[in-house]
């Protein structure tokens, strides 16, 4: 605002800039939240597919035949603990304790990696048992929905590794804190989607 001497011929900045309603300082977080909401639509459409196609077995196995509930319980626990551990990492980040934060992040990442490995193992067992995604509409919609979630978790792990390297190299600067906050939302969001997956796809899936 020190340019009044030059700008006398033009309208004052306040005429064409809104000086009262500045965008929020952490607008990235709002933008990322809106991305997550749009991601909700992807999952909502896939859930709708599964809801419609989930009983079209085409003479093949039903949910009760192929879905592995003890394995599901382990996977659910892994993802829930991973989500909470990521929260602990965020608390350490607020206290500027980089080492402790990286430790919690590593645990969260390992738990998520275990989740993905178990899921891939489950998929492979199903495919070798003749219950692959091509077998029936039920299995197509099942694999599409669950694998989309698994792909999100896998990319989340990749993102986590990148951010851990960034934090080690450049410290907890403003950029890294902002990025870690976005990843934290992503991480909790995937756990939230998993609640829908284990409840509707698996537990309801074995009942109908």
């Amino acid at each position, binding site marked *: 605002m020190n340019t009044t001497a030059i700008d006398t011929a033009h309208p004052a900045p306040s005429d064409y800039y809104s000086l009262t309603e500045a965008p929020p300082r952490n607008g990235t977080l709002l933008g990322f939240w809106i991305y997550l*909401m749009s991601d909700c639509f992807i999952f909502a459409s896939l859930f709708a597919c599964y809801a419609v196609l989930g009983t079209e077995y085409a003479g093949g196995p039903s949910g009760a035949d192929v879905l592995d509930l003890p394995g599901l319980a382990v996977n659910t626990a892994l993802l829930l603990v991973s*989500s909470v551990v990521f929260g602990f990492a965020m*608390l350490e980040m607020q206290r500027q304790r980089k080492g402790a934060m990286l430790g919690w992040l590593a645990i969260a990442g390992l738990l998520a990696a275990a989740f993905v490995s178990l899921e891939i193992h489950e998929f492979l067992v199903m495919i070798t048992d003749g219950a692959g995604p091509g077998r029936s509409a039920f299995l197509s919609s099942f694999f599409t929905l669950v694998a989309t979630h698994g792909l999100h978790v896998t990319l989340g792990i990749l993102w986590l590794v990148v951010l851990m390297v960034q934090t080690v190299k450049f410290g907890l600067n403003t950029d890294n804190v902002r990025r870690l906050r976005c990843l934290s939302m992503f991480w909790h969001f995937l756990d939230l989607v998993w609640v829908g997956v*284990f409840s509707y796809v698996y537990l309801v899936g074995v009942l109908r």
Partner: protein
Amino acid sequence: MSQPSSPGHAMSPDNHDAMHEHQGSLRGYLTGFVLAAILTVIPFWLVMGNVIANKQLLILIILALAIVQIFVHIVYFLHLDTRSEAGWNMMAFIFTAVLVIIVLGASIWAMYNENMNMMPMSPQYQQQHPISHQPTGNQPQQ
């Protein structure tokens, strides 16, 4: 920790605009974890222990518990409240929730009615028109 009180409401007016807006507390995360664990164990127990014989009722209970748990995650892990980002997070969330309910509800409703109102196919009809429907045989698909 600068915000020791309950999650989502731990804001004093002076740090409203700061980066430390909607952040969690240890107690908030642990509360969320315990609630989520309870809300996860109950449906698993109901299904794996064959506790309830009525399947329709069981499905309704599972879905109700899932919806409650989703709100637990939103409040305790995602820290959604009416004040974060001047309310825009909440607006975006409500908008999404309405559309998701429409997408899910309308899909299930429409396809259920379509299935119900399609001409029923008798076994005799299937045998006379084998191309139109694959009989539920025992040979695996190619």
